[in-house]
């Protein structure tokens, strides 16, 4: 028999010990969060450092470029409001992706789910009649349901036919975006606009602004609330524990009687719903209409944000802020110092790769 005391495992748990274990577990959890935050910061700094090389190649100064990027994102209250709007879809979608990650599912279908969510929300905003707040609510709810259905298709194919969700969500992205294009070039398009877009929504069905005079809409607060709720769901509820169990060890989940199918379906519906909500908020709060290609790249960025946020909804918030600020400052950087805005995709791609490597290294060291 293997002596359990030797490896530091208690053979019998007494009452006070149980409490101590709980505290110890909390400590492990906190130190894991700190470690993943450090990993993310190092990855981002490294990415900024490496990205200086192409900036130097193009004959510009990296520090000047980064400074104008920062100024563009946070230089004035207007800029901050604009930037926080940019962060909103990332927080929502990445929170959904993070929950999926925790359950061992890689949902890269954010782009399609956002597109379909926005499509349904726009349809509701254009066609529903009734009191304004009801229409806004119905539009947001429609977005959630549509996004959830779109992700649910991928989950269903995974569960019944065993096709990996990365492939199905990826293919559904293309189909979803094309469905939006088809609608905008068809019955939902604005006549004579010259660009595939829907007519403007009426003012009364738009998402209210948070502070009058600034662009920031209430969607940002919704996103923050969703992230906090997701954190509670993940760490403080039975369902959250089941998700983590599914992601941590499938055999353990089976042994504990946690249904793989139910868990996968539930988490994909949740993730898709959040992405759909992001799409709905984007059209009702930022564009005021459905525009072709507005969701481009969101799905991937959400995966990167979730990853930098170590699949922890609360850590996802700063990661989403970082990516949103990059996006918001990019145009100012291009205008002021002539550094092409594509640069931010280099920063995003590199910080993701570095974060992935750090996660891999960390796992290797501890195994």
């Amino acid at each position: 028999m293997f002596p359990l005391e030797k490896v530091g495992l208690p053979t019998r748990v007494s009452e006070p010990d149980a409490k101590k274990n709980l505290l110890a577990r909390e400590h492990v959890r906190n130190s894991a969060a700190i470690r993943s935050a450090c990993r993310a910061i190092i990855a981002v700094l490294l990415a900024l450092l490496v990205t200086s090389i192409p900036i130097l190649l193009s004959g510009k100064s990296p520090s000047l470029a980064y400074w104008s990027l920062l100024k563009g994102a946070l230089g004035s209250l207007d800029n901050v409001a604009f930037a926080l709007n940019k962060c909103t879809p990332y927080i929502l979608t990445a929170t959904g992706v993070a929950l999926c990650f925790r359950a061992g599912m890689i949902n890269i279908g954010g782009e399609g789910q956002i597109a379909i969510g926005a499509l349904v929300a726009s349809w509701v905003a254009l066609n529903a009649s009734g009191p304004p707040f009801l229409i806004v609510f119905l539009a947001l709810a429609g977005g959630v349901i549509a996004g959830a259905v779109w992700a649910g298709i991928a989950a269903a194919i995974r569960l019944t036919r065993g096709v990996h969700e990365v492939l199905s969500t990826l293919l559904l992205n293309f189909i979803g975006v094309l469905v939006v294009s088809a609608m905008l070039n068809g019955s939902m398009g604005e006549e004579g606009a010259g660009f595939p877009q829907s007519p403007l929504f009426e003012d009364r069905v738009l998402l209210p602004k948070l502070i009058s005079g600034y662009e920031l809409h209430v969607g940002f607060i919704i996103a923050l609330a969703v992230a906090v709720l997701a954190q509670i769901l993940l760490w403080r509820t039975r369902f959250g524990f089941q998700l983590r169990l599914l992601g941590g060890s499938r055999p353990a989940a089976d042994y504990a009687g946690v249904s793989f199918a139910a868990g996968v379906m539930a988490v994909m519906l949740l993730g898709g719903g959040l992405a759909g909500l992001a799409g709905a908020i984007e059209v009702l709060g930022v564009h005021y209409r459905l525009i072709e290609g507005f969701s481009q790249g969101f799905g991937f960025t959400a995966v990167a944000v979730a990853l930098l946020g170590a699949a922890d909804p609360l850590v996802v918030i700063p990661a989403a802020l970082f990516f949103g600020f990059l996006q918001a400052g990019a145009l100012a950087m291009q205008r002021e110092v002539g550094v092409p805005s594509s640069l931010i995709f280099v920063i995003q791609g590199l910080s993701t790769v570095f974060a992935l490597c750090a996660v891999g290294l960390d796992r290797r060291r501890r195994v």
Partner: protein
Amino acid sequence: METIFIGGLLASAIRIATPLILGALGGLISERAGIFAVGIEGMMLAGAFGASIATFATDSVVAGLAVAILAGMLPAALVAVAVTRFRSDQMVTGLAINVLAFGLTGFLIRGLFDGRPPAIRIALLRPLSVPFLSDLPAVGPILFQQPILTYGAVAFALLLHVFLCRTSMGLALRATGESPEAVFAAGNDPVAIRQVAVLVCGAIAGLGGAVLVLQDVGTFTDGMTGGRGFLALSALIVGRWNPLGTLASCLIFGAASALEVRIQGVDLPVNSYVIQMMPYAIALIVLAGLGRGTRMPQAIGRAYHTG
């Protein structure tokens, strides 16, 4: 009229499929060695960038192809190191590479030319008739009046089939994707095999991007691969990880795209976007139809490490 239409459709299907074929075959090499090839899109884009810059600068197609190969290998090298040395998640690494390639090519095409992308115009490679064979009735004009790189891509599919099934190196490659431990036990280095496989994948996918520039588009635009890498990835899976099946599914996807181009202008009850959706929908339906019958390489996605 009918036959000309169908003949022209099939001929352009083969031409349009060429970048897909190369991308998918590159991905096949990587996946048979056990590394998910989600980064094909980025590698193709890098190749397209390299080919257009080099051909534009030197006026030589050969230089364009050579630079495309190197350009495709750059992101591949990053993937190879990240997934084998750092054991990063293969799927997400591939996605990150795609974004990186999108950003870097878009940045460089402006940054290297004082902030404004140069007007690159490259003469497209003309179809090359194979003597005698191109005179065959019906199939001649379809199969044997293609640009040179198209012949190359089809030949490569056949060669790859022979390599995988008939050579010991091909066996080692396939074994690395099934059981790297067995490869290690047999005295080979699975990590090295995987790294080389990913690099070769980058080179071939880079060529695929070059084909897109040199045979189809003639210039470089931001994100010009437009999802072709992902389509190649689907083709490779629909083709069940073997070169001939992959070739066939690429041709089907090519036919769908060719159809889409040809029916624009023709008044049809279906929206052209529905036709554009077809390759993706076909891929999804076929994947779901094959279901668990799709036996992917056993060790794919799993990092290999010794003791």
